[in-house]
């Protein structure tokens, strides 16, 4: 950890708002990217992002520099992802967050006149199946797949973030890829 970051953390721990803000800005783009990869939905990603930094805000006074700040932060990200329930999952319990077009704060495009080409349509169809298959994974399998495939973490690093053995992470990756393979086989045939 560089001195600059250590000082920032110490200042933020004392309640310095701008220091906390600077810390957030150092890492939040990467956190949001991971959240988008994991949830595959921008609204859900914003929920994950917010939950992560609210937890960081609350827990920062207890951070004792026993690990790198980034490791500590991404552990929080992983924990939030593991416990995250998507808005789609929560939707059935909500009745009021609906606008007069029947949408729920989610982006939508009412215009359908920019039709994609056949190639784009095929690619889009495959992407849709991949997204659906990813949503069928358990949270642990999905976190491992997201961190390894989309974020490029090595399995050893993922094990540290998930606080488990590397062998366990390998099993999650294996079961994730097996499920994806079985689910997507008809799409590729």
């Amino acid at each position, binding site marked *: 950890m560089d001195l600059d970051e250590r000082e920032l953390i110490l200042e*933020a721990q004392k*309640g*310095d*708002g*701008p220091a*906390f*803000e600077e810390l*957030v800005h150092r890492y*939040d*783009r990467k956190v*949001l*990217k991971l959240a*988008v*990869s994991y949830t595959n939905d*921008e609204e859900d*990603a*914003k929920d994950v*992002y*917010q939950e992560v*930094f*609210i937890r960081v*805000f*609350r827990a920062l*006074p207890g951070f004792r520099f026993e690990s790198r700040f980034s490791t500590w932060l991404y552990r929080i990200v992983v924990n939030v992802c593991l416990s995250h329930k998507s808005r789609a999952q929560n939707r059935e319990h909500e*009745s*009021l*967050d*609906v*606008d*007069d*077009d029947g*949408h729920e*704060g*989610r*982006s*939508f*495009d*009412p*215009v359908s*006149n*920019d039709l994609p080409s056949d190639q784009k349509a095929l690619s889009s169809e*495959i*992407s849709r*199946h*991949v997204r659906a298959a*990813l949503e069928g994974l358990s949270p642990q399998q999905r976190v491992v797949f997201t961190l*390894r*495939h*989309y*974020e490029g973490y*090595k*399995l050893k690093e993922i094990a540290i973030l998930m606080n488990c053995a590397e062998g366990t992470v*390998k099993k999650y*990756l*294996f079961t994730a*890829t097996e499920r994806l*393979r079985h689910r*997507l*086989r008809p799409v*590729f045939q």
Partner: protein
Amino acid sequence: MRHQKFKEWIPLLAYDELDEDQKYTLNQHLAVCPECREHLEELKEIQQAAGSAGEPSETLLQQARRELRTGLRQKQQPPQHNWLADWNWSWLVPSFRTVAVGALCLTAGLGVGHFVYRQPPAGDDNIITTRPVTSGLPASPGNISVGNIRFIDADASDGNVEFTYEATAPMRVRGSVNDPLVQDVLSQALTGAQNPGVRLRAVSVLNTDQLKQPDADVRQALITALKMDENNGVRKQALAALQNFPFDIEIRDALLFVLNNDPNPAMRIAAIDAVRTERYRDPEVLRVLEEKMHTDGNEYIRYRSRAVLQEAKQQ
């Protein structure tokens, strides 16, 4: 080595997680095992189809940061941390800050002053000195709920204690939409209520041509909601309501803000329609439309911007 073990290694090979010896051993097996080769090929197809993760858009990042600020403000417990007091509030749109602070003060004033302490307290402004009573709290009619009690002096050995508490009470209001109290409450609900359904109903009520004498706070609350509310319906109603107001530069800027930043294409289209009218046409509007004509990610919005600009040139 068993076939099953090689199968377990295949994803590790695909993700470059095997050491050199393991790679060599697995490749020996793949040379003689069509099933494992097919397995590996399928996995490579999945890797390709899953693609790679792009960077989140700047708009999404800014939205996330904005919502984080709101979230932190709502979650913060004042006695434990004072960070939000030091937070860089210049991040926030000044108008929102004004409304938020105003709403907070007014809520406290209405909740405590108007409904609870109907008689002005005697003595120090911040300390309510109680009189002997026979039942209940002196300033607590039955329908008031008391919460968040904090003791300043819990030592009752001298017969006295001191504490603060928050009191809330339901209230029923019936009156004209032009009544300042009605407008104040609806403005607060529009910018302060956590429940999007409440915000939606408040903005729907304000979107009426019966509103003849709109308070400046109402207008400000509508602008804030238009720019910052996370619910599409609330933003849409706020935009419609603002069109009943006399045009000014702040409303123009709010509409252009929507055109530049709102993630919902329907809102951006509504903003174009709003700035399309004669009174809204000015160089800044034309400049933004010119930009949107080339840069907006939505084809219809690019088309619409071009059409409105052409209309402007013909007139």
